[in-house]
């Protein structure tokens, strides 16, 4: 047998999906169109969960009480993404973060924007854990998580 370098065969898998998101997430996204961020409150542990859930994952009780939380909050943590990978939401650099929205008991994942990202030193001076931020709403809202473009410094 000839000593050849083992071959590489190329291919790809691309599949379409249709995801049923259920009544709770449907309402959450409808409310986003009206610039409202909604949570649900657990009657057992009293935590306000955002995004709204059908049930509390810890108490396993249905959370039927809807509560509007603020579109302002505090940065719990953040990360400046400077590497590239497939399926990335936008070309780097960009900042992702966890935001403790006023009135919520869990943190909300989103982008942190409105900041000059050209120089890491500048970003470090500008973005800090504990910093106050508010939602930058899109003018045209379609009922998905990107109706909020990002959270910007207050």
């Amino acid at each position, binding site marked *: 047998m000839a000593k050849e370098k*083992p071959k*590489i065969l190329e*291919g*790809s*898998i691309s599949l379409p*999906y249709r*995801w049923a*998101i259920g009544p709770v*997430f449907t309402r959450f*996204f409808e409310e986003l169109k009206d610039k409202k961020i909604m949570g649900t409150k657990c009657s057992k542990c009293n935590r306000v*969960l955002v*995004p709204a859930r059908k049930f509390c*994952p*810890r108490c396993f009780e249905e959370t039927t009480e809807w509560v509007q939380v603020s579109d302002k909050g505090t940065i*719990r*943590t*953040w*990360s*400046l*993404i*400077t*590497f590239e*990978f*497939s*399926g*990335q*939401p936008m070309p780097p650099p960009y900042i*992702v*973060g*966890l935001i403790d929205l006023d009135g919520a008991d*869990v*943190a*909300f*994942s*989103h*982008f942190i924007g409105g900041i000059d990202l050209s120089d*890491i030193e500048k*970003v*470090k001076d500008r973005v800090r*854990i*504990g910093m106050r931020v508010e939602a930058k709403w899109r003018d045209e809202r379609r009922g*998905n*998580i*990107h109706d909020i473009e990002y959270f910007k410094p207050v």
Partner: protein
Amino acid sequence: MGRAVAVIGFGQTKHGRREDVNYQELVYEAVKAALEDAGISPGDIEAIIYGSMPSAMEGINAAHLYLSDAMAAFGKPLMRVATCGSTGMSVAHSAFYHVASGSFDIVMAVGSEKMFENDPQGTMETVADPWFQRAFISGAPGVFTMQGNQYSHRYNLPEDRVREAAARISVNHHDNALDNPYAHIRVKITIEDVLKSRIIAYPTRLMDVCPSSDGAAALIFASEEKAKNFPKKPAWVKGLCYCGDEHFFGDSDKVVWESAIIPAERAYKMAGIQNPRKELDVAEIYNPFTYQELIFYECFGFCDRGEACKLVEEGVVLRGGELPCDPSGGVLCTNPIGATGLIRVGEAALQVTGRAGDRQIPGAKMALSHAMGGVDQFNGIMILGSEL
């Protein structure tokens, strides 16, 4: 805990870019090595537990169907267990429970990954739900950097101090990998190299982050009765536990991280360990990211909260220290994800049986192995000891 269970064989491939073999051939290499290590034949294996990352990683769904031939699975029960990064640990736990239950005497645990066949970060991102979190998770480095930043802030630690400790962990583990012939990344590096390496997600740099690797591992678990009849010294499972967080990344605290703290506490209790820093001789911590390893030192009770940098500064967790961590070079130097957790268990087994070669911690009798998985969602521990 059920019946006493021991690890009687461990095999792993040379890890790295393994385009010299296909996926089946890679798994065959590890399984063959484990069987040879235990000195048994495929017919002695009664059941097989297999694990890998989401199948999108290699583009062959339910990979255990394709890989069954490479695991000598003909005519045997075979199942696949998947918990992302902690898969290997889940596979080990599952094999343990099969034997501990009394239903099987010899069970093989297998884990594998071929990460150069796809874009691993692209696959990992699809683990998060597509409506709320996927866009904001941004691969493993994004998640781990958020966690690391939160850690430094929580205890008001100077950025430079944490940076230096993380760099020392990287240098220590890269040095360790030089003594591990199976490790993927085997290069001598300095603190300067770490601090100058490319920024991935500030402050995380390339040398703070694990590689993508191709590789496989297999472990053979046996009942007390069987293990005692083997010529090689068995490594006994002394304690184990696995815990998870909620799926939403913002629902739980990742610094005082309960899904890491609880399994360590429970596993220590089973193993009769009261002071892990003194009673453990070595630990194989799942550390895809240097900053995260600092958090694990605290979650596993090696030091008080906010004191992890001190463990590095005093050399406690470095080579030659009181509790050396990752003498294999760890995940930081080798990361075929589906196999990675299993390698931690296998390396711990080698340590307590004095068979770890150049990476042996002299006289090691009690070892902790650990794996973490998901978007910081799961942690599992298995403690191995030299005595029943």
